[in-house]
């Protein structure tokens, strides 16, 4: 059990290109941290520096309180879960799990105790005497996890562990990993390119882009208070829509003029904060649109109704997607195209994706009235990508909330776990531990 602390970590390859550039990140003891970003963002390199596979060009890597920059991988006491696991056909499930302990020449009594505890956690107790050939795919994966757990590693590391599994097994394993991590309370760092996986698994998610840490926070913080255009576009599916807008101040007030129509300026930003920027990008998530005819009067007042030409619709039963093309100045359209490419997204950037109530009767080719929840819109500086509407107080509150939820969960698990810890030492959450005042 250990915290992992990264301070100004840089990884520079021979050609001088910084694969990881000045990343500082604290993974707290027992926390489930996700590293996410599109390919080439440096997430795997960062994980490999934690493991000890890549030399650190500069900066400091600490596990618990030990600086490990020069420590060999084996001496770091970490466990890469699922990496090259092999189940041995003639060994029982018990021996397949026990084998790292046999290798470490642990006494039989200790081996028996630790394997039994691990099997109980993984619900493999009744299969202990079976051979791997008689197990289902999911059970085999659990045996592989058992081998990692029984080692008493200080932290678990996962490098895109589910990317080669079929969709069904992937879903099962995601749930399994999440349940176990909560139960064991083992510090975990998990690399994925899949933002859905990131959002469902992590206590906190660190978003990387071209080697630079963009934002780290709870899934909710990333979704509701993205630090910049990149994070806003990366988190959420389908992606946030970005509409170019100009500021229009008149006697009636200040408005944003967008290709979809004129909105009132959201409360969280003032015209002064937009300053002399000619153009800004207004970010609206697909789910913050609605068919205006289905919105109550009271709710209507909180947002803006616009007229839009619906090009295509997709009815999925539980949701209706409508696609609304819009015009954008060429330079901004090019910028949005680049962003889309970087996010590995096939979403067209000059077309708003709108998620509507499936009861809506809006259909293709129609001029429709759409309601937009402008109170939840964000405004970005197109030049720097900075989110001008980010609410720092709210960010801090969300961070506290997430941390408290994590500690509560751990306390509940600690009270409930039948065997305490399957050999992972003092993993009980400390009830007197003060949650940090800020998430990062």
């Amino acid at each position, binding site marked *: 059990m250990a915290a992992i602390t990264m301070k100004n970590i840089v990884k520079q*390859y*021979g050609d001088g290109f910084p694969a990881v550039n000045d990343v500082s990140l604290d993974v707290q003891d027992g926390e489930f941290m996700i590293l996410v970003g599109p390919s080439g963002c440096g997430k795997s390199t960062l994980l490999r520096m934690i*493991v*000890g*596979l*890549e*030399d650190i060009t500069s900066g400091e890597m600490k596990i618990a309180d030990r600086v490990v920059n020069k420590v*060999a*991988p*084996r001496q770091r006491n970490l466990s890469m879960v699922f*990496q*090259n696991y*092999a189940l*041995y*056909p*003639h*060994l029982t499930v018990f*021996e397949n799990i026990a*084998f*790292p302990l*046999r*290798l470490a*020449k642990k006494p039989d009594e200790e081996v028996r105790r630790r394997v039994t505890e691990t099997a109980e956690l993984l619900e493999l107790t009744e299969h202990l005497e079976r051979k791997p050939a008689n197990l289902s795919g999911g059970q085999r994966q659990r045996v592989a996890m058992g081998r990692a757990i029984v080692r008493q590693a200080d932290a678990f590391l996962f490098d895109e562990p589910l990317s*080669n599994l079929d969709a069904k097994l992937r879903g099962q394993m995601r749930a399994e990993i999440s349940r176990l991590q909560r139960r064991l309370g083992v510090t975990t760092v998990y690399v994925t390119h899949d933002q859905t996986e990131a959002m469902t698994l992590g206590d906190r998610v660190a978003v990387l882009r071209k080697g630079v840490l963009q934002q780290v926070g709870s899934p909710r913080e990333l979704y509701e208070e993205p630090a910049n255009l990149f994070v806003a576009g990366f988190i959420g599916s389908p992606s946030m829509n970005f509409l170019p807008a100009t500021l229009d101040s008149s006697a009636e007030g200040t408005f944003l003029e967008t290709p979809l129509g004129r909105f009132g300026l959201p409360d969280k930003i003032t015209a002064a904060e937009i300053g002399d920027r000619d153009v800004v990008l207004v970010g609206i998530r697909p789910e913050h649109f609605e068919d205006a005819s289905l919105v109550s009067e009271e709710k209507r007042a909180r947002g803006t109704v616009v007229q839009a030409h619906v090009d295509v619709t997709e009815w999925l039963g539980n949701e209706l997607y409508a696609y609304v093309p819009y015009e954008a100045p060429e330079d901004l359209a090019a910028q949005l195209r680049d962003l889309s490419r970087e996010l590995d997204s096939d979403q067209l950037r000059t077309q708003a994706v709108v998620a509507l109530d499936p009861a809506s009767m809006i259909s293709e080719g129609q001029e429709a009235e759409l309601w937009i929840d402008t109170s939840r819109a964000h405004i970005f500086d197109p030049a720097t990508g900075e989110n001008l509407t980010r609410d720092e107080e709210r960010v801090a509150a969300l961070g506290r909330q997430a941390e408290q939820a994590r500690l509560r969960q751990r306390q509940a698990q600690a009270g409930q776990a039948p065997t305490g810890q399957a050999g992972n030492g003092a993993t009980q959450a400390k009830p007197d531990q003060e949650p940090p005042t800020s998430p990062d």
Partner: protein
Amino acid sequence: MHFVFRPPGQAAAGLLTLPWRLPLEHWTDERLVEIRQRGLSRHVVRFVAEGGTLYALKELHERLARREYGLLRRLHELGLPAVEAVGAVVDRGPDLDAILVTRYLDHAISYRSLFANPRGGQHPTDRLLDALVELLVRLHLAGFMWGDCSLSNTLFRFDAGAFAAYHVDAETAELHPSGLSEGQRHYDVDLARERIAGELFDLFAAGQLPPEVDPVEVADDVVRRYEGLWDELTREESLHPDDQQYRIAERLRRINELGFDVDEVELVDADTDAAVGTEGGVEGGADGEAIRMRVRTRVAEPGHHRRILYTRTGIDAQENQARRLLNDIAAFRAHLERETGHPIPEVVASNRWLAEVYELVVQSIPDELRGRLDEVEIFLEVLDHRWFMSERSGKDVGTMAAALDYFENVLPQVPDDLTGTP
């Protein structure tokens, strides 16, 4: 369906008629071959004999298949001992993974088969580990991290009584053209230690491990052997100017003996280097004139002897085999020179040896025993047999007599499924 293969693709063309649109495990084609005692695999693996060649087919995710295909090709280009990637079949239809096609190594043996069929009551652990460690070192020198070094992921070939190891499964391998970090090497070796111990525990559970073999001991020994060889090949030495030349020559000879080539020798003034702060702690000479030798070792494959033998005789042998055959050619040449009383050119001696000695023996191998071992290995065993017989009878029995006796009494004892070629 999309079949990517490397030219020349004549053999691969015959594979096109296989039922690619069905899941591999459901195939019933008559060209399928069952290979007993093959290694374990996470994926469905089947074997197909087509046009006299045996192919291994592995079904796996397209991304992984393409990656492995690329890595195996790269290994091949670098002259590293690995199975040869023939092609990859992608776009086989909905819900079907890709299939990677590799050429099965002729006369290759898996560790399981070696343990199940000990020859002459001797278990092969020692020679097996030497071969595996050498392979791992070669890969590391070339910038490959194996990511899953194990006995199951290796095939062995007899090499004049020793073994040559071949890399079979590149699924987890990584190529780092600028070289491996210390962490990557250590990680790879740790993983090898674990995997080998696991495989030996498994053999033990299957009742195939001799009682005197301790899996943990063996696994630890792999690490020791690896470190020994790596150190021998790469360590820096501090040299005194007086014996510089001799020490350099000695070191190079030692590295060549181990089957490796030296790419570059760098001599650095120990003092200058210390000032730069290089780690290593080699002491400079008291007079400040000592120099430090850095040796960049390169993978030499197909080894020195192998290349010479091939150019002289057209025989494609393993390195140790080649060394012994060259010795035999040299002895034959000396014999010819003595007999004729004048010098015989090397090329003449080689050609006559090939026609008058080697081919005579090889052509007289009974057909039913031909596949038991590869031809070169059989020839070398005949040479050994001749030596034993001559010693026993107190006079040289001659090669052909030894061969006939060997075909009658020794070769039939080699299990016919020891090597995987049908």
